[in-house]
């Protein structure tokens, strides 16, 4: 394979695997700001070794995730453990409260302006790791609560609770601000 062919093939693999891989990195990184760096380093390493390793087509995604996992570990130090969240909520009262949340609680429908959307994303990124990941999966991947729970290895009620709190906070913070951007 010539260098040109190799680069072309790499682009094909990149376009095919990008979405899956970025989701994996978002879900497993400690800081959302590190995602692009980890992603680039992962593909760079992949480019340098994939020919030698002769990875099968159906194994490409798993192979990339393996590289990404090592990159994340390396990025946060050797002793960083990729988190798996607890499936069980310890607070019984919280469970009862979550049940009262209606399914159509997505209250960010007032965000019609790009600048406001940027401000909101910036604000979300200051929140806790778990909240950011849930927000990302919910808005960018358009995952359902159930899918998010599966992806992050969380209980559905936890996802619902965190998302609800985040959106409520955003609503309270930015509902008044929205007029500035209109």
């Amino acid at each position: 394979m010539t260098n040109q062919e190799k680069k072309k093939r790499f682009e094909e693999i990149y376009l095919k695997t990008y979405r899956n891989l970025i989701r994996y990195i978002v879900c497993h990184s400690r800081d959302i700001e590190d995602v692009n760096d980890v992603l680039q380093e992962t593909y760079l390493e992949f480019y340098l070794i994939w020919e030698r390793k002769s990875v099968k087509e159906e194994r490409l995604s798993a192979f990339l995730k393996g590289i990404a996992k090592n990159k994340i570990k390396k990025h946060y130090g050797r002793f960083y453990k990729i988190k798996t969240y607890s499936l069980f909520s310890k607070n019984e009262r919280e469970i009862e409260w979550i049940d009262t949340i209606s399914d159509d609680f997505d209250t960010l429908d007032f965000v019609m302006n790009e600048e406001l959307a940027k401000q909101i994303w910036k604000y979300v990124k200051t929140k806790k790791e778990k909240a950011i990941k849930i927000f990302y999966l919910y808005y960018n991947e358009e995952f359902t609560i159930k899918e998010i729970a599966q992806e992050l290895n969380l209980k559905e009620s936890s996802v619902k609770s965190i998302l609800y709190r985040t959106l409520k906070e955003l609503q309270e913070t930015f509902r008044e601000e929205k007029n500035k951007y209109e």
Partner: protein
Amino acid sequence: MSRNQKIKEVIENEFDLNQNLKKIQEKIERKEKVPTRNNWKAAFITSVFILTIIGSLFVINQSSSMKQGNKKETINQFQILAYVDQQGNSQKESLKENVKIALKSYNKAISSVPGYPLIFELEDTSSKMEVRVENGDIYTWDSSSGKVEKQGKEYIIQKSQTLYFDVNENTRININYHSKENHLIRKKITIESDDKFNYYATLSN
């Protein structure tokens, strides 16, 4: 239910597929230009290999020069001549290393000289040569006075001189040449005879 598209666009922009691809391609190009650790290793090994070859060639060359130097020293600093028969005529011939030469026939009983003559020519008067003989004797002869002197088994030559050797079937002459720089060169001359009483001399180390 479709989520807020504006927020989705903002997030997608942050993790932009094309921008990331561009940055990856730039990193690949940089990486391909910069030698990797393996390349450095290969370069190092190649350099060591080349240097070893050059070094070996240098050493071989030096050693060869030294050998040539030694040879030259032997030839230039002294030479040993013997008389050989050349189509019925007696001629002087220089002894060469590992070359067996047939000596001129000699009969002790009828010859006017006290033994087989060997001519030792020294280039430098500050050098000296120790001659020791095994299974034979050394004689000197003053041709002007006709005086013959038996020197025994050992003789030291300070200047070019002819020595006469009373030889037997297997006579060995050991030579230690000391140059003016005090380098020592050891040689030996083996004199052998065949059934027809022909004698042969061979110079060797």
